[in-house]
């Protein structure tokens, strides 16, 4: 089971996308210096196909991507939900921000376009610090995964 504590439309997490980010609770990770420790609790609404359908319909084609922020307690369910999204909302890309260092065993990534791996380590900093341990991968046309973390370190074009 996964639960959604809140959601927002964000721009930084996934480069070049307008992303509906679902902040998932029940987080099993215990990162030191976690920015939202409340997400470890059992809070929010159960995420199922109905909830996703309603949320996505609310924003229609205004968003280009849906990203699960967390959900490490039930990756298999995330894969199923990602599949559901791709089947029903073909225009949407799907992302997953995981706190794990590695993908879970037998994890089905066919329906994901972005996957972020790596726990938050205070001394190494978040994705926009070049010292970070976290990695964002983007699926390429040939289905391979490319590390695009360095995109977070690029200065805006006008500088």
């Amino acid at each position, binding site marked *: 089971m996964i639960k959604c504590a809140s959601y*927002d*439309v*964000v*721009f*930084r*997490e996934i*480069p*070049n*996308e*307008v992303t509906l980010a679902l902040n998932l609770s029940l987080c099993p990770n215990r990162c030191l210096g976690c920015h939202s420790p409340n997400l470890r609790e059992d809070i929010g609404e159960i995420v199922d196909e109905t909830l996703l359908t309603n949320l996505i319909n609310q*924003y*229609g*084609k*205004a*968003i*280009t991507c849906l990203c699960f922020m967390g959900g490490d307690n039930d990756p298999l369910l995330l894969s199923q939900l990602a599949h559901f999204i791709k089947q029903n909302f073909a225009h949407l890309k799907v992302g997953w921000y995981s706190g794990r260092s590695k993908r879970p065993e037998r994890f089905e990534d066919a329906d994901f376009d972005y996957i972020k791996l790596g726990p938050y380590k205070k001394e190494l900093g978040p994705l926009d610090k070049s010292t970070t341990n976290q990695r964002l991968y983007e699926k390429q046309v040939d289905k391979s995964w490319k590390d695009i973390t360095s995109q977070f370190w690029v200065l*805006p*074009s*006008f*500088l």
Partner: protein
Amino acid sequence: MPTTNQRDILITKRDGKKEVFSIEKIEHAITKAFLSVGSFVAPDTITNLLSRICIKKDMQVEEIQNQIEEALMAERYFKVAKAYMLYRQKHFEDRATRDKLTFLMNYCKANNAATGSKYDANANVENKNIATLIGELPKQNFISLNRRLLTDRLKKMYGKEVSEQYINRLNQHFLYKNDETSLANYCASITMYPWLISGTASIGGNSTVPTNLKSFCGGFINMVFMVSSMLSGACATPEFLMYMNYFIGKEYGNDYYTHTKDIVDLSKKKRTIDKMITDCFEQIVYSINQPTGARNFQAVFWNISYYDKYYFESLFENFMFPDGNKPDWSSLNWLQKRFMRWFNQERTRAVLTFPVETMAMLTENGEPKDKEYGDFTAQMYAEGHSFFTYLSDSPDSLSSCCRLRNEIQDNEFSYTLGAGGVSTGSKSVLTINLNRCIQYAKRTDQSYMTFLEEIVDLAHKAQLAYDENLKELQKSGMLPLFDTGYINMSRQYLTIGVNGLVEAAEALDIKINDNPAYLTFVQNVLGLIESYNKKYRTKETMFNCEMIPAENVGVKHAKWDLEEGYKVLRNCYNSYFYIVEDESLNIIDKFRLHGAKYIKHLTGGSALHMNLTEHLSKAQYKQLIKVAATEGCNYFTFNIPNTICNDCGTIDKRYLHECPVCKSTNVDYLTRVIGYMKRISNFSIPRQEEAQRRYYDKMR
């Protein structure tokens, strides 16, 4: 008169303080009045006079003095009465001078010009000095004069009752007359054709018609200054780049944009075509951003437009320059982009407020029809440039001012007036304080729609009275801009402004987000105004409705309403359809709240300032332009505060807390709280607070 308990009676002094009533003071005043005409007053006379005076609790000093006047006349001491009246008048004048002096001292001590200004806090002035102070002093006189002009006219047109009703509603802050400190009509988008065929002579200037690029640049600056001095608000020149392009073509050939690296200057500098052009940009932009003596040291408010191919074609398809040439899209396309890029770059060198730029694009199927311009617009936002975008699914309207949207009446070309579509504007703005109206109706157990209708009707009558006065001015030859065709009277609107819409809905316990109750409220209120706009429309008089930016009115309304005990949740009313500090709304929600169904009745427009802490990528801006087109949000800008270092002067397009060059934390921000970019520290203090509180969407 009561004598037994006179010691208990408190009266009200001019400064509002209470004082125990003293009969000796009255006796003293009467004695002095008699002495001033060379006579002594007998004790009996004093008793007779005092018996005519009635003192009540909390009575104002003025009222007691009125009674003394009347008593003197009733007892037939006319000479003494006259002396007493003159004495009072002299003191009244002294007090007025003293008040002005106090204001003068306070203005000198205020932190900046906007906070010091008593009447017009949006004053687009960087620094306060003797010139700005000189501009401040006569403002109260203008207000009195404008009120008198309007009430006299209202009396003539609709009778004494309506005239008095107007003044009452104004004084009770149900209505607010914008720009009452100026005598001139408000703002205009002008056609420059009259200038092209007869120079500035017809409007009182001395420059002849522009004949080459150099005389175009110099003459254009003069012309904009002259036009602006006859307007109280903005001057838009939507044809600026099109005309400039024509003169560049005359100088370097119509295909100049294909070889801009050619050296065309015989001086040692060996300037290229591109350098010659950007030097012209520099001359015009820096000149127009100068403080202007004739406008109380404010810069002129200058607006320009860019067009996509489709807008250009529909606005100028029939246009012809006096020599028979037609405007050329290919070179104008290059020039528009060149100007925009140059201006974006130049803004890292100096604080340049003007021109306020609007990109006008036609949309089709929820995205810009001209893909090249849709792309370019997103690119410019991604490069950190700050400008407005106007979207429309048909070229029947244009926004050429920093906020005003106008329906295009006709696109005909005239050999004397040029392109018809660009000539428009607003003659006068009269704003309704919706929060006050709705809370007052609630307080007095009336239907708010019925009460609002009374106010809306009154506002239209007042605007028609203003219009009549303007026509009188024109008849006397006072408005050469109209006579010579720079502005077309019949294409100008009378604008009904609204302020406190969000606050009014909150007072009715309506949630401020996209929900049926809020939508119904917005549509009812704005729909009512639109129905009156139609009702009062004649062949020569048009109305529109605008959500005003309320640069200073928003602050004043909040203050006045609070003083009268109304529910006021913030000290500056919103100029948006959402609460500016509300963190629960995301960017898409905000576009939706400024989308077609909410702005439907705002025929005069409203601008969505999308506040962000960080710049987005081109792909993201492109997507958001699509969102705006789909939602029907026709006018918006992205607002990312730029950082300016107070120590080394560096300007950075990012929102930073530390100067990237000298590492100083003494930084200020440039932001578009109102129509134009300005330093936050030059806003009035309540506006600065609003800018602080304003929720900038974090990108996380």
